[in-house]
C-alpha cells in the first residue's frame, strides 16, 4: 500500500468553475435549494461517519443480545441506536472470528454503508482496491499490514446489490475492563471495512 500522492486533487482547473456554474443554473431555475445542499454536506462532514459504526460495534461487544440482533437484522439493530436513513435498513453485519475474516468491496462502483461509516475514503473507491480485493484479498490485506494465517478463511463481500456490509471486528484481548465508550474509541473505520483489526 502506497501513500496517496493526492492525484485526485489535481483536477482540470475549470472543474470547480463548471460545478459552480451548474449549481447556479439549478438554483436560478428553482430546481435545488442551496440551503438543502449545505445541510446535506454538513450532515456528511459532521454527523454521519465511522463513529456511528464504532458505537454499534462497541454495543455488540458488550451486549450479547444486541450482537445477536445485529447479526440477524443489521438495519433494525442500528436503528435502536438512532442510526439509519440513507438506506440503512439494508445493512448486513458480518462477524470476524479467529477462523473467519471478512472484507468489504464494491467492484462495480463505490457502494458503502453510509448510515454507519459515512462516505468512503478515496482508496475504497479506487481502481486498485476494487480490482484486487476479490482476486487477491490476502495480498491487499498484507499491504494494509494484516498478514492472515493460512487457516483463517477470508470472505470477501462484493456489494453488487443494495445490501450494505459492515464488518463486526473481533474484540481485542485484555479489554474486559473498558467501558462501552472506551471500546468504541478503539474501533477504526478500516476495521469495519475489514482491512485492519482492532488493537487494544
Amino acid at each position, binding site marked *: 500500500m502506497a501513500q496517496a500522492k493526492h492525484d485526485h486533487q489535481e483536477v482540470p482547473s475549470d472543474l470547480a468553475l463548471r460545478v459552480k456554474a451548474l449549481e447556479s443554473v*439549478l438554483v436560478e431555475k428553482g430546481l435545488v435549494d442551496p*440551503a438543502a445542499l449545505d445541510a446535506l*454536506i454538513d450532515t456528511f462532514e459532521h454527523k454521519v461517519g465511522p463513529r456511528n459504526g464504532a458505537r454499534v460495534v462497541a454495543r455488540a461487544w458488550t451486549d450479547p443480545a444486541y450482537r445477536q440482533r445485529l447479526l440477524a437484522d443489521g438495519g433494525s439493530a442500528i436503528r435502536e441506536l438512532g442510526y439509519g436513513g440513507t438506506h440503512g435498513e439494508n445493512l448486513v453485519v458480518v462477524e470476524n472470528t479467529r477462523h473467519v475474516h471478512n472484507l468489504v468491496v464494491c467492484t462495480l462502483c463505490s457502494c458503502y454503508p453510509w448510515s454507519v461509516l459515512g462516505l468512503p475514503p478515496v*482508496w475504497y473507491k479506487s*481502481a486498485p482496491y476494487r480490482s484486487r480485493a*476479490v482476486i487477491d484479498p490476502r495480498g491487499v490485506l498484507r*499491504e494494509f499490514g494484516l498478514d492472515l494465517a493460512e487457516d483463517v478463511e477470508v470472505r470477501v463481500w462484493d456489494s453488487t*446489490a443494495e445490501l450494505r456490509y459492515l464488518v463486526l471486528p473481533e474484540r481485542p484481548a485484555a479489554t474486559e475492563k473498558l467501558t462501552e465508550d472506551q471500546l468504541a474509541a478503539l474501533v477504526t473505520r478500516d476495521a469495519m471495512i475489514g482491512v485492519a483489526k482492532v488493537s487494544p
Partner: protein
Amino acid sequence: MNGVHDMGGMHGMGPVEYEDNEPVFHARWEARTFALNCLMRAWKRWNLDRSRHAIERIPAAEYLRMSYYEKWFVGLVGLLLESGLVSRAEIESGAPRAEEAKATPPTTAEQAVATLSRVGSPRRDASVAPQFHRGQPVRARNLNPAGHTRLPRYARGRLGTIDRDHGVFVFPDTHAHFLGEKPQHVYSVRFAARELWGESASPRDAVYVDLWDDYLEPA
C-alpha cells in the same frame, strides 16, 4: 455493459494508495457535486440505477483518468440533459433560459437528509416467490448485456451456493433503462475463490456476490 467499471479481478491498476486522516471532501466542488447528485434525484426523473449507468457510460479512457467526483459531475450533467431538466445552452452559459417560470425545489434544508433515504428505496414488499433457496447450488448465467447490469464479469458462468436470501428488490437491468422494476429476490451467492480464480487461490477463501434471480440458474 462490459465496461471498464467492472474491474473485479483486473491487474495493472497499481497499488492501493492510502491517505492518513483523509477529509470527507478534498475540495468544495466535490461536496457540492455530491449534494447536487443526491438532491436532484428528488425530481424522480431518473433512479439510482440510471445514475450508476450514466457513470458507466463515460468512455473507458476518461473513466480511468477522472477523479471520483469528476465522474459524478459528468454523470449528473448527462442525466440533466437527457431528462430535459437543463439544456446544454444553460449549462454552457451558466444562466437559465429567460422565458421559463421558476420551479420550486422539492426538498428544503430540513428535509434534505430524510429525502436521501426516502427517494428511490430499492426494496419492494411485493410477494414474489424466490427461485432459489439457501444452500442450493447455482450457476451465474453467462449474460453480456450492452446496457446496465450488476452481474460482474468475474462471476459469470461460475458455480456458487446460495448463502442467504435478502428479499425482494427492483431489477437494475430493466430499472436503469426505465423498462420497469421487475422486482425479484436478491441472494448472497458464495463462490469459492478457486472456482473464480483457479488453483493459485487459497482453498479456504470465498467471494460473496449479491445476485438477482434473473442472473442465476440451477446447477
